[in-house]
């Protein structure tokens, strides 16, 4: 019994430590001070600034908050677009390679392994040198390629196990019953591996949102994502409304995690029933 209490309290203590920095920002998001203090008491000013309440902010601040929102939008856009591209490319890639000859499978697998082990900074350097030597200037496309490169192996790794679990006869049966390969792909193969595709897409979005290095080195100078915005701000002094932003972000993440879990719990139930 004592052991159980000690064990549980250790877990909760660790969780508290993990969340301490974020909770710290959340607490101080309700102060109006520049620094971390409550000299003016409880206030929602930072939230009002975040939602561009002109009455309490200077023109300069207004522009800066707008830049923060642009950066957030950019982060989101690149995460979703690269997620879609990586999922399509990786999804078809996983299927194609899985049903290819052994040597090809092995070669592709080796390249995937190398790519996973390569540090981000080296991936960034290698593709930037490629872009420079091809005379491609940095822009959305280079950023997109960088992010797809970053997330692609993980999309493939989420899908391959599902392909392995699948009954190989299903696809053949569909063909025998007169389906064209494309129809069989759409009606049989893809539904079977859909959980893997979904997981791969989510993982891709997560990795993209969390990225800094590849983003910073492949993006255009004027294009900011949340990561590069904050990184720049840490050098010049992070504005206090970032605290309010963190609180909102935390709530959004919490909701997203809850939703996804409800969804996957439902999927799991469905899977059990159909069996």
């Amino acid at each position: 019994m004592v052991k159980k209490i000690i064990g549980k309290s250790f877990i909760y203590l660790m969780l508290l430590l993990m969340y301490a920095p974020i909770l710290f920002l959340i607490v101080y998001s309700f102060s109006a001070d520049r620094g971390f203090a409550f000299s003016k008491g409880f206030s929602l000013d930072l939230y009002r600034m975040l939602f561009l309440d002109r009455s309490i902010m200077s023109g300069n601040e207004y522009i800066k908050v707008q830049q923060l929102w642009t950066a957030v939008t950019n982060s989101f856009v690149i995460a979703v677009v690269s997620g879609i591209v990586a999922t399509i490319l990786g999804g078809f890639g996983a299927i194609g390679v899985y049903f290819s000859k052994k040597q090809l499978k092995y070669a592709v697998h080796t390249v995937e392994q190398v790519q996973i082990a390569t540090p981000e900074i080296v991936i960034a350097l290698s593709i930037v040198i490629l872009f420079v030597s091809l005379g491609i200037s940095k822009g959305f496309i280079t950023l997109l390629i960088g992010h797809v490169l970053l997330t692609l192996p993980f999309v493939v790794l989420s899908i391959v196990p599902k392909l392995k679990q699948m009954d190989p006869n299903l696809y053949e049966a569909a063909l025998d019953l007169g389906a064209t390969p494309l129809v069989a792909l759409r009606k049989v193969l893809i539904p079977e591996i859909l959980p893997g595709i979904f997981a791969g897409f989510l993982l891709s979005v997560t990795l993209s949102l969390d990225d800094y290095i590849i983003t910073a080195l492949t993006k255009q100078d004027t294009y900011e994502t949340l990561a590069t915005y904050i990184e720049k701000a840490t050098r010049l002094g992070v504005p206090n409304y970032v605290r309010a932003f963190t609180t909102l972000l935390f709530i959004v993440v919490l909701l997203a995690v809850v939703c996804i879990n409800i969804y996957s719990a439902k999927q799991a139930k469905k899977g059990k029933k159909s069996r």
Partner: protein
Amino acid sequence: MKNKKHFIFSRSVFGVPYIVFLILFVVVPLFIIVIKAFSFKDPTTEVVTFSLNNFIKVFTTPTNYPVFLDSLIIAVLTTVFCILIGYPIAYLLANKKYNKSYILVLLFIMPMWINFVLRTYATRSLLINIGLNPAEIPYVTIMIGMIYNYLPFTILPLYTTMLKMDKSLLEASQDLGANNAQSFIKVVIPLSVPGIISAATMVFMPTMSSFVIVNVMGNNNITIIGNLIQSQFNFQLWNEGSALSLILLIIIGIISFFSGKLGKEQEKTALW
């Protein structure tokens, strides 16, 4: 039979764009790095020749030595501390006595969803507020920032290995007279070695290049290999950058070779 072959062929066609993408953006760039690392452009005649100059320069620049040393120390310490802290957490999470649901595991992973630069800034603010100033004790604050960032990456593979562990072996060891500590040392730890190795590689490799955490948590006072490569970008010194990258790749190649078959890549996808 003939038909079947035709269909297998048609499915492998779907992989063509993916393979082309891998060749264009993984294989070719890595080749370019190797070529750049071994070539030298004469500044006056502009003639490119094969040379080991870039490597010689990397190893003979005295200011590089503390960088290598710091990178190594930070990487090793982060890995060790993450496993020391993450192991008991994973053990308790995977143990039915302490935790029955997946929610707690999820809670440990959830901070990963908030961009790490923002999280690092949050950690820095908190540490400054409780009197740990990066300007005074940069190594301490860097270590805290690194451990905080990489802990979820250690908990996850350790947790999955421990879940898969055959619990009857534990019972067997206790039936045979081992006490709790003995069965932990003789059964649990050996069985979780694959998890430890995969956790270690997942922390050790990225720490080498995660210079943002080092910059933010160390007040830009400490330089690691990642910063060094990044600074080559600013001056467009592609050859030296390539040589450094190649060295880093070789180090990582050696490490992966030794941890090789044990570190399974699937662990990271277990997030979902």
